């Protein structure tokens, strides 16, 4: 779960990491009021989860109330990666000459957490080459580790002590709150030599959320994604017109590829989960039937532990409940003959293979 910048900065403060003074504004008037209180120069920052915010125009320097009004209006209307902000962070600007990058993140391949730093970071850190990377032991790091890491980034003296303090706190935050990523980009070096995190990016390990109830409901979800997660489905809304339902994440992912290759546009990814039973199939079909942008449903089941006859029975039940979007199905696996006979006299279009079903759903007669 990714946090908004203002939420991540609240977490930073909790761990004693300094961040610029700021106010969260939910509309243009609140932004102007914040400006009146805080005095220029200030920065307005769109609170979206999508990346590339700066390049998309989601950040603006402002020095007058009139500028706040026009820029706040613009930013509230600016969609970044399909996402419009519900709030703007009004933040005190920090004049600086140099920017560093610092993060604590999971390296999946190395099967370890690590810290990554660059002496000159900022907006293009992904392309920078002078990265320093050190593995972080499971039990965490100490001041000495952090000082040594700072030295690798050409820091020394009091500045390196300040850096080490930031890294120790960031690592502790990452470990205690079970973050997949805790990132400061940029970590600004002010004209006075002081370091200050200007942006904060935090992604919490979804699987660890049961130990961190404080994050529950922190990030608003899409209504259908919320409903699906309550039902225990893995569900991602994709914006197209073909709802894709199957059993198993990999199988559904592979079905999305078949649909995409055939020129179709999936409306959603819905994984019923392993060993799905009749009620779950019914619940999934009811959910995608309500999804407004979907006008047809592709069901791809490879029956194993999930019984194909349960799938057929689930489809029969929802069909009996009233209007149902057209269903194109491939139901394969144990007892598939029985399942097919159960569905033979219904409106469900059955196909022997996944590519056949995909071809039919993408180019309906």
């Amino acid at each position, binding site marked *: 779960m990714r946090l908004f910048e203002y939420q991540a900065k609240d977490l930073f403060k909790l761990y004693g990491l300094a961040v610029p003074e700021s106010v969260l504004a939910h509309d243009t008037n609140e932004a102007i009021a914040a400006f009146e209180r805080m005095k220029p120069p200030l920065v307005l920052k769109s609170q979206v989860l999508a990346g590339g915010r700066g390049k998309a125009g989601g950040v603006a320097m402002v020095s007058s109330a009139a500028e706040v009004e026009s820029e706040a209006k613009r930013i509230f209307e600016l969609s970044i990666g399909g996402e419009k902000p519900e709030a703007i962070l009004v933040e005190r600007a920090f004049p600086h000459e140099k920017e560093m990058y610092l993060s604590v993140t999971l390296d999946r391949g190395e099967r370890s957490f690590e810290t990554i730093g660059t002496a000159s970071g900022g907006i293009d850190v992904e392309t920078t080459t002078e990265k320093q990377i050190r593995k972080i032991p499971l039990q965490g790091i100490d001041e000495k580790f952090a000082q040594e890491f700072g030295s690798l980034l050409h820091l020394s003296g009091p500045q390196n002590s300040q850096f080490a303090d930031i890294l120790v706190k960031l690592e502790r935050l990452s470990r205690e709150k079970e973050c997949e990523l805790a990132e400061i980009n940029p970590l600004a070096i002010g004209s006075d030599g002081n370091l200050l995190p200007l942006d904060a990016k935090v992604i919490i390990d979804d699987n660890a959320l049961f130990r961190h109830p404080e994050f529950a409901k922190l990030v608003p979800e899409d209504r259908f994604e919320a409903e699906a997660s309550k039902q225990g489905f893995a569900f991602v809304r*994709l914006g197209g017109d073909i709802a894709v339902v199957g059993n198993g994440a990999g199988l559904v992912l592979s079905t999305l590829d078949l649909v995409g290759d055939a020129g179709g546009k999936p409306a959603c990814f819905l994984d019923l989960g392993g060993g799905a039973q009749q009620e779950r199939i019914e619940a999934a079909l009811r959910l995608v039937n309500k999804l407004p942008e979907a006008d047809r449903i592709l069901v791809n089941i490879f029956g194993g532990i999930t019984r194909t006859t349960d799938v057929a029975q689930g489809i029969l039940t929802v069909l009996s409940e009233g209007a149902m979007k057209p269903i194109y199905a491939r139901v394969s696996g144990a007892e598939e003959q029985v399942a097919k006979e159960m569905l033979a006299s219904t409106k469900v279009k059955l196909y022997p293979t996944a590519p056949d079903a995909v071809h039919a759903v993408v180019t309906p007669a």
Partner: protein
Amino acid sequence: MMLPQRAEPVIVQNITGRYGRLHTRLMLDYETNVAAGAAPGKGGQSVEGVPVFNTVSEAVTHSGAKTSVFFVPAEFAYSAAEEAFLAGIKLLVVITERIPVRDELKMLELARKHTATIIGPNCPGMIVPARKVKLGIMPVTAFAPGRVALFSRSGTLMYEIADQLKGGGFGQSIALGIGGDPINGLTAGECLDFVETMPETEAVVVVGEIGGDAEERLAGHIKKAAHSKPVVAYIAGRHAPKEKKMGHAGAIIYGNFGTAESKISALRDAGVSVAMTPSEVPLLLREAISSKA
């Protein structure tokens, strides 16, 4: 890791849970020797005729098992894994999904300390059809004895591809789920090293998906190790959006990291034939085997 022997005893952890019970029966049906189960507070019961013990240690003493099939819920996974290793379990097949990543890292560290192997987590387990050994939850109808080793990050996609292989006349020497989480115990590279020593394996199929760099690392490993057996791969998620977790905790693209394109080009660069659809896998496999011969 050693290839499990026919009728080798294994235990099931959390055997009294819904999945533990169901899959104990299905493993027994396949003639796998589930010799004991563990479930705290349930000692003295039996599941499908298999005796249940309160602790892993008692289950191991009773059965002589070195292998455990693990259905313990995510919240308790770390301590149950620790209990297993302390009791002498050397192969832990972790079916459980949604284990926090830091717990998985700690589990791996323990496994290293005890020179044990973890398969998974969040995987369907492994099956060795010729030996009637099934340590996991895969539907047996898709699998048959044969000469292809099949490794997959995804469960159902492994079944789907096993079924496609069956349609193409190929069975499996071993099929093993690497797991859908960001962290895996046994890696695809280790799996390839393992089957290089298996005379009953003629070729390898690897099923990957978006997220992380396991396939890129595998490609690097293939180049370096120069194994003798041809490898065919299939990667799911070419049309997946970025920054969205696609069912598996590990199936997520960040920026340009973890894309299907990157994996496909790395594998092709290492001489692996990469199928664009599951149904293409048996065709490429046939080609790869005949060109190697």
